[in-house]
């Protein structure tokens, strides 16, 4: 069971054997996706027909590679734009929420805090349809009453961003609040005693203290938004973000371009992860 107890050889072998199998299966699908991005065949399937970079670079109309595939590149850009909006908005709201819960005393705080976390237990599909229904209701009302067409309340990127924001804000709230709770308030008091104004204290003491949590939540928020599928599916209009476009193409029959884009995504996320871990390690080392 634990190393300090005598364990028979089979138990030790079993433990490590199982762990190895677990990690093998964990990475198998990702490895397969990566390998078939280089297979010289029109479908991502065996047998291996030889190595090619066509699925990245080719502009041959028979076999369009990732960097020649305008709709796919466009969808990456769409996802990035949405994710940047969602990240900005949920960081701002997450930070104000954290201060509200930690620094302000008011009746019903516990209930409000519960409400802030509620979006995390609402299935994404339902967040999507409820926002879709409500936005359409307002848009129809505006049309009926004043004859104004509120285009942004119809399925499209604004609604996608709002839908993702509705639950990403809960996550940023939690992580900023967790750090703010450990803040030593006497640091701010000392700054006030030394004559600093409220804004200066926030800028020079509180904000630098919160920075790691803010950067961490920004990374998580960006990733959550970029990879979101459920909520996005219900709110999407004519501009498809990447996950929706990939899903659509997979249903039609995948081409290795999807493997190529997946591999690029994996490398980018890995780079981001290494960057974040590097920051974490430096902080611990310092």
């Amino acid at each position, binding site marked *: *069971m*634990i190393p*300090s107890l005598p364990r028979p050889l089979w138990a030790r072998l079993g*433990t490590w054997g*199982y*762990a190895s199998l*677990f*990690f093998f299966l*964990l990475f*198998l*699908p*990702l*490895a*397969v*996706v990566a390998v078939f991005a280089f297979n010289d065949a029109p479908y*991502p*399937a*065996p047998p291996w027909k030889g190595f090619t970079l066509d699925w990245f670079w080719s502009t041959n109309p028979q076999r369009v590679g990732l960097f020649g595939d305008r709709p796919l590149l466009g969808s990456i850009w769409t996802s990035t734009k949405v994710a940047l909006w969602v990240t900005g908005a949920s960081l701002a*709201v997450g930070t104000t*929420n954290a*201060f*509200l819960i930690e620094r*302000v005393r008011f009746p019903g705080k516990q209930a*409000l805090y*519960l409400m*802030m*976390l509620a979006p995390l*237990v*609402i*299935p*994404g*599909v*339902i*967040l999507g*349809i*409820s*926002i*879709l*229904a*409500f936005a359409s209701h307002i848009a129809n009302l505006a049309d009926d009453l004043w004859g104004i067409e509120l285009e942004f309340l119809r399925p499209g990127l604004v609604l996608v961003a709002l839908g993702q*924001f*509705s639950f990403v*804000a809960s996550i940023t709230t939690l992580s900023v609040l967790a750090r703010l709770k450990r803040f030593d308030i006497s640091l701010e008091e000392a700054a006030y005693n030394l004559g600093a104004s409220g804004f200066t204290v926030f800028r020079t003491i509180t904000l630098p203290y919160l920075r790691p949590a803010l950067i961490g939540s920004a990374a998580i928020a960006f990733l959550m938004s*970029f*990879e979101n*599928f*459920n909520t996005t*599916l*219900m709110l999407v209009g004519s501009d498809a973000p990447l*996950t929706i476009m*990939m*899903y659509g193409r*997979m249903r039609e029959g995948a081409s290795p371009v*999807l*493997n190529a884009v*997946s591999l690029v*995504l994996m490398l980018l*996320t*890995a780079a981001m*992860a290494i960057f974040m871990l590097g920051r974490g390690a430096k902080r611990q080392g310092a």
Partner: protein
Amino acid sequence: MHADANRNGPLLMRLGVLLLFTPVVLWLVGLIILPHIELAYLSLRVRLAPRVYEPSFAQYRMFIEEPLYLQTFLRTAVISIVSTALTLVVCFPVAWTIAKIARNRVRSLMFLLCLIPFWVSETVRALGWTILLRESGVLPALLVSLGISDKPPELLYHDATIVLGLVYTSMLFMVVPLISALDSLDDSLIEAAYDLGGNSANILRCIVIPHAAPGIVAGCIVVFMLTLGNYLTPTLLGGKSSQWFTEQIYSQFITRFNWEQGSAFGFLLLGLSTLIVYLGLRLSGQKFTDVMART
């Protein structure tokens, strides 16, 4: 200077507090509360003629009377429960290895390896499984070349494939709470139990599981919820035969444009999900905020 500060202080404070309240109110009222009221309102009416509606329970009656809908709902619930249980069984030994057996660098490395696949989009992971499992895929080809099977078997589009995909996609949410629960278990308790003659089975039952219960429940709640609300994995790995409930909601809303029926389905799914979360918390005597803060 001082008088100024005193005069402006409370006013500024109140203004500041107001500013702090604005975003949260806009967010929760505008994107959560009002949309759900809208959904409830839609689900409780029936369309008589274009733009003529009447309050009614017809949508919910339809759910009970139409066997397909009820079956899909129950099927989704059962597969979700099975997947959650399997996720727990698959993840527990690994969480144990990471929390109790591995040391230092191996331990951090293993933990990191658990996280990495989940930073990659679920679409990519599903793509990987389809390449592995479909009839022309890697695993069937392997089975043929090993002589286990005469012609490549279709491994996609089975219930077992859906379960596999769901377990795979939710493992992280089980491993992390399990590790943190097992981590806080003092090794000397296990040693003591062993000295007193306990064997692996009853140490697990009497010491490890009671101690890890909060982590187990937290993991199960999150995994069940995500599984129930999943759309991508069941539809891609289950194909046309997946019959997943979120798919019903999608087809009512987007394909058939029957928002009344879709809203009722949405509420039923939300109800089941909330019920399970509530029961899980009650059974383990935990607070919602603690569980959420931990995961």
